[in-house]
Each structure stands twice: as C-alpha cells, then as structure tokens.
C-alpha cells in the first residue's frame, strides 16, 4: 500500500459531482451545513446553543432536535421525490427526461433510505422523546445519557448519507440494497458503502433508543399507573420499542455481513464462493417488516389520543386496543416472506405467509373500528389533528385493503415489483405514519413550546397534503394495474403511461406546497406566539397527565410526582372536581404541597462527540481510510471512558425546592417562556 493510498484511501478529485443537478445538491447541502454555524455566530447564540441543545440530556430538547433533523431530511427526500416524478413524467419515447438512468437509480435509492431511516425514524423518536416521559408521569427517561448518544448517532448517520452528495456517489441498489447487485462485483463504487454505514450508525442509535424507552415505560411510570391504566400512545410506543429491540439486531448483523463481503472479500451474499443472496433478502425483511410496524404503531397511538380528546369521549375498547397492539407485535414477525413470494419458496410456505399477512389486518381493523366508535355520538371538534385523522382513516383503510389484495400470493405474482405496490406502501407510510406524526406534532406542540400552531394554515396544509397525496398516488395504483414496474427511468409512449405520470407529478407539487405551508405555519405561529399562547397548560381539554402541567413543560416535567388511580387520570380529576380548575399542579395542589428537591442529570458533551467520532468511523470505512476508522474508534471509546470515570454525584444536579417553587410561581404569573422551560 502506497502512502497516498494510506492517507486518502479511495478519495479522488474525480469523484466530485459531475452534472448540474448533482452540483446543486452538493452546494445545497454544503450551504445548509455552513449556514448553521454562521447564523449561530451572528446571533451570538453559541453558549445557549451548547448548554440548551448540543449537550442537553432533557428528552424534550432531544426530541426537538430529532424532529429538526427529520424535517431537514424530509426536504432532501422530498426533492428526490420531485426529481423522480419529473423524470417519470417526462422521460417517454424520444425524450430522456432530466437525469440519466444511473443518476435516477441513485435518487430512488436515496429517497427510500432517507425517508424511512431519517424522516420517519427521526420523527418517531422525536415524538417519543417529547411525549412519553410526560405521559407516564416521569421526570426523565431511564438512561438520559444513552438517549443523547442515540440522538447523536442518528444525526451522524444523517450527515454521512448526505456526504454522498458532495463526494463520491450513492447506492444504485434500491433502499434495501439487494445482493448480488449491492456486492462489490456489481457496485464497485462507494455508493453502497455510504448506504451501509449511514444506516448502521443511525440503526445502532435506534436500537439503543428502543431499549431506553422500552425500559422507561416499564420502569418509570408514576405511582398507580398500572399497564392497563397507561395512555394508549405510551402503549403503542411500548410495542414499537419492543419491536425495535427485537428487530434492529438483525439489521445490525445484515449490514455488517454485507460490509464484510464488500470490504474484506467474504462470501455471505456473493454470487460465487458459496454465498447465499436469498439469505440477505430473508434477513433484511425479518428486520424490515417489523420496522413498518415500529413506524406505524406510534401513529396509531397518536390517533388513539387525538380521537378521544376531539370527540369528548373516552377511547372505545381500550382493552381491545391493547391486545391488538400486542397481536401486531407478534404477527409482524410472521409475515416477512410476503415481500418475496416470487422467490419460489413453494406453495405451502407462500400460503402460510399469505394467510398470516391477511390475519395481521384484523388487529389493525379492530383499531379502525374503535376510533370510529369513539367518534360515534361524540361532540367532535374538527381541529387540525382531527383532520389528519379523518384523512388517515379513509386513505389508510383503502391502502390496507390494497395490502390484503397483495397478501394473496397469486395476486402478488402479478403485482410484485410494480407501481401498485409502490402506491400501497406509500399509502401506509405517508397517510398512515406521516399523517399520524403530523397530528401528534400539532397536538403536543403547545405542551413543548408554550403556544399553539396557527389553525388556519394548519388546515390549509392538511388539504394540500390530502389532495396532493390522492393525485400523486392514485395514478400509481392504476399504473400498477396497467403493468408499469417500479423504478423505471424511461418508457415507450405507446404504453399510455404518460398522462397518469403527469397527474402524479402534479400531486407531488401539491404535496410540496403542503409542506411549504407547514413551514409558513411554523413561521407565522412563532411570530404570533403571544396571541397563540397556551395559558392553561391544557389547550385541547385533554385527558392524560401531560396536560396537568403548565406549558411549555418545565425541564423537570412535574414539580410534584403524580399518583393516578384511573385511566385518563386528568379527565377523572376534572369530572371529580367538576369545576374547570381540576387538579392543576401550578395552582391548588402546588400551593398546598411543598415543592421538593428534584434530582436531574447534568448536561453531557460526550454524546455529541461520540456522534462525531462515529461519523469519522463510518466515513473512514466508506473511503478505506483506516487511520480515520481508528481515530473514530479510539475517540468514541475515550469519550465513554471519561464518562465512566466521573463520580456519580458529578453526573447529577439537584434543583432545590425553592428554585422549583420560584419557577412554578413564574408560570402562575404567566412569565415563563420556552427559554426558561
């Protein structure tokens, strides 16, 4: 090995972007990356940024950071989507569209990977961080430092996957990188390595986050909150983190084995050497199918909170909801083979997995009916979160039925690898997962920031998303039935696909406007934050513990520890006290009971640095910069050791009772704002 190869590995100037669109992507990413530190310097915000954000162990802060990264990644994935829609609408007959076939393959691979791993997972863990401790009456998560490490690993993966815009190329092997295409023989560039290491690093973050919240929910619930008194959102998160803890180790192994094949010439999935590529497909879907339920269960949970509150009724069939979550957790491990019925596993195997796939629709159906029964004879308020639910329930049911159609192996042989499938899973992920998270973000926003989001713009965004979605994905169902396969970069004009693709492109533009409207909504709401201020801490007439405390939630969450005796504990208190004052920690109770000393973890810089070193580690592996791999490894371990060798007492701080009383007092007089919370 020459010295140059040792220092620079596979890096070379020739690998900088080669065409205008790639240049644009590269510059866009670099300017975003540069803008953040410049803006912070301009506004002299470094110190609060360091103390309140980068080193914070407060799950509410970490949650906001998760969602910020996820929204940025949604911009990236969304631009990819617009490029794909433009390409497929224009690349017909003599026209070759706007990008080359090779570039198109990179775009769809990046789009899928980013949307699942960095948008959906980011919003998921963001919401979990924001809501779960508040909802179970806890002041913190089980392992606050681990939570910070999880986030920074996620962020490191997000940066790494975007590095492909600047130097080298991205994988062309689709979002799950099936071998043998993803093996070195057929993908010799760094693209697949970027994919592997970005997912590996963020995936380990997700695994640690999953363990953390699984333990948090099982061990940190406030007194009196038995599992069957736990709010539904927390139940679905319990299910999702349970699945995370079981499924993500399989992903870790699968990615490692692919990396060993590519980097060290092993033969797990290669075409030669005795490798077995179908084993990869089995392994990746043994993780991948539970992953779908990891994403969607908490969205179900959001709706299980939103529908009762905005219908003014308790959730119908709580017990059946709980058991359907558990049923989904188990069944989601018994359906993975339906992703490759065409592999030729034989009629009996296909029949088993086909039946299991149809069966998993039953617990989901139970949920749909329960939400509808909750609404029945309720006093429904059509606020934005409820609108997201209404859009969800129609589209998700239709998309679910399309899924049951494909659960028939016979039908699947026709529909496999076609646009019908693409339309189906986008219905599940967009109108299921994303609409759910949007509803949740709107619903819990005032609790985190102390003011509500603008309703008018929220509604407008919803309608744009809804119609945009129908226009963008309705045509794909039809195209799928016409025989259009997924991932085509060019087709003949005689096939008659083009009109449908043009409609789909229009839908994508509408969705883009929906997203822009959401940004506008955020901007307008921040501007009008005084008018939109949540003075009561309970803007929606809520039922669960998070609404008993003031908004924005103070950093210690609960000044006194709640003890619950029923489901919907806050609602029960409201009924009991009749008057609207209910049990409000800021008012009657806090005055009657003396505030107590609260022990919370101190800030930690190590999480940020571990994320940084993990990035170097991944980047080193992608480019074969072995010295950088070593730097990343040693750096991360050193960060951990500094933490291990710090005395326990120095990791914690005590907020004296007087300080708590003073903060609660400032809430009573309406002086508290997000910066003090």
């Amino acid at each position, binding site marked *: 090995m020459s010295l140059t190869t040792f220092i620079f590995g596979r890096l070379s100037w020739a690998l900088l972007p080669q065409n205008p669109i790639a240049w644009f992507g590269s510059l866009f990413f670099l300017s975003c990356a540069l803008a953040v530190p410049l803006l912070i310097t301009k506004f002299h915000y470094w110190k609060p940024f360091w103390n309140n954000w980068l080193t914070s162990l407060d799950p509410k802060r970490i949650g906001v950071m998760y969602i910020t990264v996820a929204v940025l990644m949604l911009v990236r994935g969304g631009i990819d989507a617009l490029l794909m829609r433009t390409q497929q609408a224009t690349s017909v007959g003599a026209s070759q569209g706007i990008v080359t076939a090779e570039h198109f393959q990179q775009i769809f691979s990046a789009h899928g990977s980013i949307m699942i791993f960095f948008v959906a997972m980011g919003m998921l863990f963001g919401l979990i961080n924001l809501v779960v401790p508040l909802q179970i009456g806890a002041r913190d998560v*089980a*392992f606050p430092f681990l939570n910070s490490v999880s986030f920074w690993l996620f962020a490191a993966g997000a940066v790494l996957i975007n590095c492909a815009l600047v130097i080298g190329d991205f994988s062309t092997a689709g979002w799950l990188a099936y071998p043998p295409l993803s093996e070195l023989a057929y993908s010799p560039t760094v693209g697949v390595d970027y994919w592997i290491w970005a997912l590996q690093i963020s995936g380990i973050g997700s*695994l640690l986050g999953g*363990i953390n919240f699984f*333990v948090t929910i*099982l*061990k*940190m619930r406030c*007194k009196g909150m038995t599992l069957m008194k736990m709010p539904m959102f927390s139940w679905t998160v319990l299910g999702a983190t349970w699945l995370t*803890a*079981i499924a*993500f*180790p*399989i992903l*870790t*192994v*699968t990615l*490692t*084995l692919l990396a*060993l*094949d590519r980097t*060290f*010439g*092993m*033969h*797990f999935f*290669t075409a*030669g*050497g*005795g*490798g*077995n590529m179908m*084993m990869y497909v089995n*392994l990746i879907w043994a993780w991948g199918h539970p992953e779908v339920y990891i994403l969607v269960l908490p969205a179900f949970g959001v709706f299980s909170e939103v529908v009762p509150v905005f219908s003014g009724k308790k959730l119908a069939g709580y017990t059946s909801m709980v058991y359907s979550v558990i049923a989904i957790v188990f069944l989601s491990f018994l359906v993975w083979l339906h992703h490759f019925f065409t592999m030729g596993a034989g009629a009996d195997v296909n029949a088993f997995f086909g039946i299991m796939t149809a069966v998993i629709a039953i617990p989901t159906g139970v949920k749909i009916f329960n939400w509808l029964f909750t609404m029945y004879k309720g006093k429904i308020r059509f606020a934005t979160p409820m609108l997201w639910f209404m859009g969800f329930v129609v589209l998700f049911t239709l998309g679910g039925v399309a899924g049951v159609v494909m659960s028939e192996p016979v039908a699947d042989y026709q529909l496999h690898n076609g646009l019908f499938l693409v339309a189906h899973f986008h219905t599940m992920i967009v109108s299921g997962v994303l609409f759910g998270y949007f509803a949740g973000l709107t619903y819990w926003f005032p609790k985190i920031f102390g003011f509500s989001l603008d309703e008018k713009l929220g509604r407008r965004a919803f309608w744009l998303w809804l119609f945009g979605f129908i226009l963008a994905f309705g045509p794909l169902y039809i195209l799928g039935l016409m025989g259009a396969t997924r991932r085509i970069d060019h087709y003949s004009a005689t096939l008659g696909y083009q009109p449908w693709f043009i409609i789909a492109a229009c839908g994508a533009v509408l969705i883009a406007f929906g997203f822009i409207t959401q940004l506008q909504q955020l901007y307008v709401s921040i501007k009008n934050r005084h008018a939109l201020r949540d003075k009561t801490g309970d803007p929606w007439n809520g039922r669960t*513990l998070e609404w*008993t405390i003031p908004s924005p939630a103070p950093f210690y969450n609960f000044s*006194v*520890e*709640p*003890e619950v*005796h*029923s*489901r919907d*504990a*806050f609602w*029960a*208190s409201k*009924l*009991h*006290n*009749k008057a609207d004052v209910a*049990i409000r920690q800021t008012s009657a*109770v806090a005055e009657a009971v003396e505030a*107590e000393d609260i*022990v919370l973890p101190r800030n930690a810089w190590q999480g940020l640095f571990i994320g940084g070193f993990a990035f170097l580690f991944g980047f080193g592996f992608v480019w074969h910069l072995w010295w950088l791999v070593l730097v990343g490894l040693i750096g991360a371990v050193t960060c951990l*050791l500094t933490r*291990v*060798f710090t*005395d*326990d007492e120095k990791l914690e701080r005590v907020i004296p009772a007087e300080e708590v009383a003073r903060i609660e007092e400032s809430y009573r007089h309406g002086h508290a704002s997000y910066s003090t919370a």
Partner: protein
Amino acid sequence: MDTNTTTREHEPLTIHHTSIAEQDLKKDQTTFFGFWIYLMTDLLLFASLFAVYGVLRANTFGGPSGADIFSAPFVLTETLILLTSSFTMGLTMMAARANRKPLVLAALAATGLLGLSFVSLELSEFIKLIAAGHGPQQSAFLSAYFTLVGTHGLHVMIGLAWLLALGISIGVRGLTRPNMRKLLLFSMFWHFLDLVWIFLFTLVYLWGIL
C-alpha cells in the same frame, strides 16, 4: 355520565413522594433491567449469526469443512478456560458482597488473565487457519465461521477492556455503591458470553467435528 361518584374509574389524581433512598433503589433496578434487555438484544445478534452459520455451514465451495479444521482437544481447552473464568467471576461477586477489596481485585485479575488466554488461543487458531490459506475469503462457510466466532471473541475483548477499567476504578475508589453496581453488570455480561460460547461449542465445533 354520573360525575358525582368516586368509583375507581373516576378517582382523581393525587400526589406522591418518593424518598431519595427509594429513588436510588429504583435507579439501580432500572439499570439492571435495562442491562438485561441489552443482553437480550445482543443475544438476538448472536442468534442471527448462528442462523447465518447454519445456512452456510455446508457451503465450503471446495475449501475445508468444519471436520477438516476443528480440533476437539483445543476447543475443549478454550472452553474449560472460559468456564473457569466464569467461576472466578462468581468468586469476585462473593468477595464483593463480603466487602473484601483485595480478594475482589485478585479474583478479577484471575478472570482477566483467563479471558486473555482464551482470546489468545482463539487468535492463534485464526492466524493458523489464515496462514494455511483457509481465511474468511475462501468460502461462505469460513466467512460465517470467522464472523460468528470472531464476534464472540470481540465481545470478550471488549469485556477485558471493561474489566481493566473496572479494576482500576475499584482499586482507586474501593467498593462504592456505583462500583458494586458496575461490577454486577459486568458479571452479567461475562456469564452471558460464557452462555453464548456453550452454544458456539455445541453448534459450531461439536456439530462440525461429529
């Protein structure tokens, strides 16, 4: 709905107070439970590797099979060393409960030395195989073998680094409450590696030799 009755379903919120001692106890219990969950995820990681090995073990692609390269006395020696280290780890915990710091350090050192000799034996076996041309690149079977056994070896090495850090911490600060907690976590980790090795011994070596 009747709002006047205070049946169990409509009982209002009350206030609870947890003492510092209770909080500390709860924190320890949470840590142990969390570590158990982590160990289960690690076990699933090994389970996936075992499954991969099971699929690929016959794919020797013209290279040697397990029967050709495994030596029963050698693996038995490795196994006995690791089992003994589990025993000394048990002694460490007993000494820690009896609050005898020198004994704790001695038993911990014995555990570390046994672990080190286990890793050395494993590495020497790997080096011998690679030198004979039977590296992980030769066939799918060897890829799976090296990865499965190597992952276990890597865990042992991480355990050894942890053991060293823990030994220093106990040497400097004594058997404090945090150190006792960390010692118990380490002991769980060490026994876990032993358990995984039993499966490795059976499913890789015995099945390969027989």
